């Protein structure tokens, strides 16, 4: 099995640094390095949940504190040997995190600043409880009598080595997560949790696991730190200081990379040290605040990202804004398997009976009967407000129908939420594309392959995603970010993502809106290729040229009901349809 370079590099660095105590430096340096490593563990562990998934927690102090107090109490009251308290500290912190997360993550609206405040409040509550119970009792816990195990030449060396081991482990875990399917899911949650959920990412489970890992690592750091301090008080631990510092370190270094928080931790520790050494501790705090402000204003992505971008800019010659090759010209690679299309459409794929949807008394859909046959392209037309988009939203599971039934491939879809419908073989695009903003084009499609196409291995997912990009003509743009794409390309990206889960039915919601005539031609050709691949297509559209060219059959909606059905050219000339669009005036 091929082992990646990065973990080897981390282990090698760790091994090399392990020999440092043998140099016989004064204890002061061991302690300083210990602190730097200690913060690496805290910041990196925080980042695993908060940086990767975007759930900025201000409660890291609570879990760190839980670790400290578990260790301290086990050592002081029950005479546990120090090293055995570490796994206990990790376990307690992780359990606490999972218990909280199980409740908090269930509540839909708790995100962003609400989550941050919630975790901060939890810290203070736990701190108060600890202070007022025998866990601390207001007097703190003294560990003066506890023996420090002899792992290194001196006690401070021992702590250094323990922190080093913890730091190496944490960095390896952080790297491992980033490179895995789990990490890809977390990054997707960061950009657009709802879209990620529809795509099949198990958001609740992933967030809980990330929280558990984050807390466990913080707990270990706490356990080690308890003995390092040898005297712990609740007032010092359950405060805003720890969360603020880890947020600062991670934001400074870069929250999207496993090494970002470590970079920030080293930088800030060095900075604080230089201030303290020069006897300006107070100014040090001000400097920290100033750095945070500067980072938010000027370098919101962190040092690492900025450096990486500079590096890439130098290494590769600037990719000139070459005109995107006309997608129609390229012979698209066909991701296997492909079905031969072209037979008469007679098998019913989607059946809808009596579908109705009302919003507060307004009947958006008033009893629709519809069938979509395998291999056909069906157009949904109608004036504004006629119910077309509502129909798509109900079929895809975003709205629950008020009445009626939906069957897909013989199975009932009634009551299924959006992500289950997506998992059944139906994919949809949105009128306004919602790509994951921080991921590049390839990663965007890879997420869909990983979670919608149920591929396990990120590398395989990327290969398949590449094939879909070639299919839609976006292969040149694979490293670009969605913001760099024009509207046309963004819509094609949407299509690639929708196709990556290999749906049997594709619902397109006004996908041609806003495109130039030549872009529309490209899109029409692509849609035809999608049907030739074996998918059936239902699309809502206003661009009549495309409707005429593409559809086998159209359905016209009006006031929430089906007005007419049949071949496009034929239907659009029927009097009732012309009246619906143009009114009586035409016949005056």
């Amino acid at each position, binding site marked *: 099995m091929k082992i990646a370079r990065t973990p080897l590099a981390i282990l090698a660095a760790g091994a090399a640094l392990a020999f440092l105590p043998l140099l016989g430096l004064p204890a002061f340096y061991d302690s300083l390095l210990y602190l730097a490593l200690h913060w690496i563990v805290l910041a990196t562990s925080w980042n695993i949940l908060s940086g990767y998934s975007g759930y900025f927690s201000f409660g890291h102090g609570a879990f760190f504190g839980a670790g400290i107090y578990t260790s301290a109490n086990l050592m002081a009251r029950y005479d546990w040997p120090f090293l055995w308290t570490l796994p206990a500290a990790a376990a307690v912190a992780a359990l606490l995190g999972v218990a909280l997360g199980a409740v908090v993550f269930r509540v839909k609206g708790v995100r962003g600043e609400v989550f941050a405040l919630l975790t901060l409040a939890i810290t203070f509550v736990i701190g108060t409880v600890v202070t007022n119970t025998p866990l601390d009792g207001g007097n703190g816990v003294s560990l003066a009598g506890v023996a420090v195990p002899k792992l290194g030449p001196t006690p401070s060396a021992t702590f250094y080595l323990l922190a080093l081991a913890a730091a190496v482990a944490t960095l390896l875990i952080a790297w491992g997560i980033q490179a895995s399917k789990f990490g890809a899911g977390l990054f997707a949650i960061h950009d657009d949790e709802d879209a990620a959920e529809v795509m099949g990412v198990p958001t609740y489970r992933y967030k809980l696991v990330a929280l558990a890992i984050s807390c466990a690592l913080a707990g270990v750091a706490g356990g080690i730190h308890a003995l390092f301090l040898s005297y712990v008080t609740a007032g010092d631990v359950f405060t*805003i200081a720890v969360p603020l510092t880890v947020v600062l370190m991670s934001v400074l270094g870069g929250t999207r990379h496993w090494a970002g928080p470590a970079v920030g931790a080293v930088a800030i520790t060095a900075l604080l040290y230089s201030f303290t050494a020069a006897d300006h501790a*107070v100014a040090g705090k001000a400097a920290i605040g100033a750095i945070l402000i500067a980072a938010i204003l000027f370098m919101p992505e962190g040092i690492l990202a900025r450096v990486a971008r500079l590096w890439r800019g130098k290494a590769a010659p600037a990719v000139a804004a070459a005109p995107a090759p006309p997608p129609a010209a390229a012979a698209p690679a066909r991701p296997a398997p492909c079905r031969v299309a072209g037979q008469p459409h007679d098998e019913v794929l989607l059946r809808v009976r009596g579908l109705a949807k009302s919003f507060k008394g307004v009947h958006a859909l008033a009893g629709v009967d519809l069938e979509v046959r395998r291999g056909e392209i069906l157009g949904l037309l109608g004036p504004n407000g006629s119910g077309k988009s509502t129909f798509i939203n109900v079929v895809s599971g975003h709205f629950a129908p008020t009445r009626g039934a939906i069957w897909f491939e013989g199975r009932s879809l009634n009551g299924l939420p959006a992500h289950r419908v997506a998992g059944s073989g139906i994919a949809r695009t949105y009128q306004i594309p919602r790509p994951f903003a921080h991921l590049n084009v390839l990663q965007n499609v890879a997420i869909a392959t990983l979670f919608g196409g149920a591929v396990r291995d990120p590398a395989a997912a990327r290969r398949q995603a590449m094939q879909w990009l070639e299919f839609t003509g976006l292969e040149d743009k694979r490293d670009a970010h969605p913001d760099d794409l024009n509207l046309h390309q963004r819509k094609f990206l949407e299509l690639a993502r929708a196709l990556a889960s290999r749906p049997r039915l594709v619902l397109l919601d006004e996908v041609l809106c806003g495109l130039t005539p030549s872009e529309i031609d490209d899109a029409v050709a692509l849609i035809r290729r999608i049907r030739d691949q074996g998918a059936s297509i239902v699309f809502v559209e206003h661009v009549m040229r495309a409707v005429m060219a593409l559809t086998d059959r159209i359905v016209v909606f009006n006031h929430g009901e089906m007005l007419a059905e049949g071949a496009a050219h034929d239907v659009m000339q029927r009097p009732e349809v012309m009246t619906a669009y143009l009114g009586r005036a035409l016949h005056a």
Partner: protein
Amino acid sequence: MPSLSLLSQSILSGVFVGALYGLMGLGLGLSWGLLRLINLAHFAFAFLAAYLCFQLAAMGMDPLLTLPILVPLFFVLGAALHWVMARFAISPFNSLLLTFGLTGIAESLIQSIWTADFRKLESRYAQLKFKVGELYVPVPELITLVLACALCFALWAVLRYTDLGRAMRAAAQDAPVAAAFGVNEKALGLLLAGTCAGLASVAGVCVALSFTLAPSQMYAWIGVVFAAVMLGGLGSALGPLVAGVLIGVSEAVTMAVTAPSWAPIVSFTLLILILLLRPGKST
């Protein structure tokens, strides 16, 4: 169980401290609700004002007379901060982080000028108190209550009944359409930000009147005031006052019945419950 008079005295002091929570929360809540900015620097402004008031009082000035100096000063500071944040188009979450940084700087500034020692403002108000029946009413706390109620009601009236208030509420809900009717969102934002900072400075003076000052004290207020704001409703002028008093009274009763160190649990638990039960209403 404490005696009735002790309990009543506790409740009264809870009302007083709760009014201060409300006054502190007034600017924070208006800023969050109407400007979509979570301004932790609000606490920095309040404490800077508190220390400045202490300093001016130590030089002989009557603490209440510092208000005409401090309020305009902080109005300008608040407007300037808002201008910077608007210029960089800071998101609500980043505004939380950024103002957190400012709070750290302010704390260092305070500590470098006034050291970490406890400071107590000595004024002629400090010793005054009334006796109403069995209850003692200390004058500094009474001043705080009066100021809090007056300012909260004044702002409520402005928001509810004046064109300016309507314009602010409209701009908060749908700024482009408000602009289509002539509402200059940028100018209003500066005005509101300055007002919130001015309110913070008044709260700071009240803190100086009644409490002992220390740089780290700033953080002790953050949790409680946020609880008052979220409980009372973002963008509301009277909500935080009512919520603050509720919190203050529950804390005081908890302290009287159990022990002072249990007090923080009340406000933070309330905050947690509010955040869990009505997250949608909070943002």
